[in-house]
């Protein structure tokens, strides 16, 4: 039985790892094709990505949008999740469940109307538009997550600080937020990742060269499939790695924290 389980493990590992092996080997091979093979190690694909494809610009765009989104999201999530956690209101539960409902509806459902709204408001091809959309899209889940953190902090703590003369706002920043730092870090990591990796709305929100982000450029590079050009597997693989690295690093860093707060609905 033990051996059977071990054999199944090996089959699972083969199934899940071959696409990654292919990707990582191809990125370091000048002559990579769709077939998995050992490379003549080279960094020339990465050099080409930066020299010929202006990748620096796309990395800066992506990092900028993701960082501002993260800051804005953390601020809004901290204040509103705290409010929901502490508020005494008849409709509090309805509010919470409507957050869950908003989170469960896939964005592809409202993609066409989102395009219409953003076009009407002239927010396409702008940092502001991207940041607003990326912040808003993550709020339902992250508020839900953060509220869970705040619920574990006893209200007596704030009450004590009021007696010392703190206002509600001051108590939030001086007493509550420092204790809930793990939660804040998880929200920061997830909101950064959400904005960094978002690759669907970017297709309809940006088409100007100077606003392009990493996912959009990656998308354009793979769309030559079935088109007039052969897809350049070696080059696109190096794009993929530049796109993927921050995701993997941040995920590993936040995994320990996340494991303590696993909540239904992490699917993206």
């Amino acid at each position: 039985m033990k051996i059977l389980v071990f054999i199944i493990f090996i089959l699972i590992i083969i199934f899940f790892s071959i696409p990654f092996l292919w990707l990582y080997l191809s990125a370091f091979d000048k002559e990579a094709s769709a077939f998995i093979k050992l490379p003549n190690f080279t960094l020339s694909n990465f050099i080409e990505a930066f020299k010929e494809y202006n990748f620096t610009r796309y990395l800066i765009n992506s990092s900028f949008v993701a960082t501002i989104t993260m800051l804005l999201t953390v601020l809004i999530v901290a204040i509103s999740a705290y409010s929901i956690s502490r508020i005494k209101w008849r409709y509090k539960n309805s509010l919470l469940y409507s957050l869950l409902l908003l989170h469960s509806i896939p964005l592809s459902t409202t993609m066409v109307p989102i395009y219409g709204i953003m076009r009407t408001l002239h927010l396409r091809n702008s940092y502001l538009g991207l940041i607003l959309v990326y912040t808003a899209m993550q709020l339902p889940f992250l508020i839900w997550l953060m509220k869970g953190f705040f619920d574990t902090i006893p209200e007596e703590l704030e009450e004590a600080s009021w007696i010392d003369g703190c206002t509600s706002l001051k108590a939030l920043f001086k007493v509550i937020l420092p204790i809930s730092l793990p939660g804040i870090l998880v929200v920061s990591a997830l909101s950064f990742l959400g904005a960094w990796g978002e690759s669907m709305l970017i297709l309809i929100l940006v088409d100007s060269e100077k606003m392009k982000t990493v996912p959009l450029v990656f998308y354009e590079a793979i769309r030559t499939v079935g088109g007039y050009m052969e897809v350049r597997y070696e080059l696109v693989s190096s794009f993929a790695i530049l796109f993927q690295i921050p995701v993997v690093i941040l995920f590993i860093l936040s995994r320990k924290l996340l494991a303590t707060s696993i909540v239904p609905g992490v699917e993206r």
Partner: protein
Amino acid sequence: MKRNQFLILGLLPAIFLMTFLFVLPSLWGIYSSFTNMALLGKEAANFRFLGFENYIKLFKDSAFYTSFFNTIYFVIGSALIGQFLLGLIIALLIDYAERRKIPGRGIVYGIVLLAWINPTLIAGFQWSAMYDYYYGTLNTFLKFLGLPKINWLGSIPMLSVIVANIWRGTAFTMLIWLSALKTIPVELYEAGKIDGANAFNRFRYITVPMLRDIITVNLIQITMATMGAFLLIWAITSGGPGLKTTTLSLFAYRTAFESYRLGYGSAIAVIMLLINLFFGIIYIRLFRRR
């Protein structure tokens, strides 16, 4: 009282932004679905109200039914059968391996998780290379075994995107099951063993009833997420060949952004929204009961 006012004030920025991204588009979608709104062409210059015309046309459109049934196949194949069963099996195996100290469980956990956190577009790129007819890894392997090549994206496109989506999304179910399995007291299994129940019966009569609600919530979550899947299919097949892998979200996208018919695309979006709301409300109901 003053404190409650402060708290309500704190909710306003979030409510404002969520209205902007979720409520406003829904209203705009409903509005434009009753019009001939278009991005290009002569319709774009002649904006007018159509009433229910778009919806009537939609329910006569064979492409709509094709995409609707493709969505159902895709959900059943990749979420309900694939991700759910495979995620369950992997979770049970890891759980078993942890108690028997079988090596490899950490690698299995890590690699399944990596496929999930990997950006979906990259997954699409990886799998379109795997499925490549001439040079792809899969066909090269078949040739090595002396078997004939398979035209993965030509003759069995739906199955191919389903497999890619199972690869991408199994981790979510695995995570849910792994943490849920830990909530069952070990004593229950030991009691079952003493009563002579075999492994399957212990699963059937102890695990399943204990986790019934979690299972249902998980099933609805993956159903909704899979119904809305867009990027993976779009990156691998673009919905083709023909309409063979066009699900509703791809159908809406192609109508709006390739045929430039925003109004008609919005009508499709509204139908999708209704289907999602239906599942969403069931989901909330179940969640509430817990």
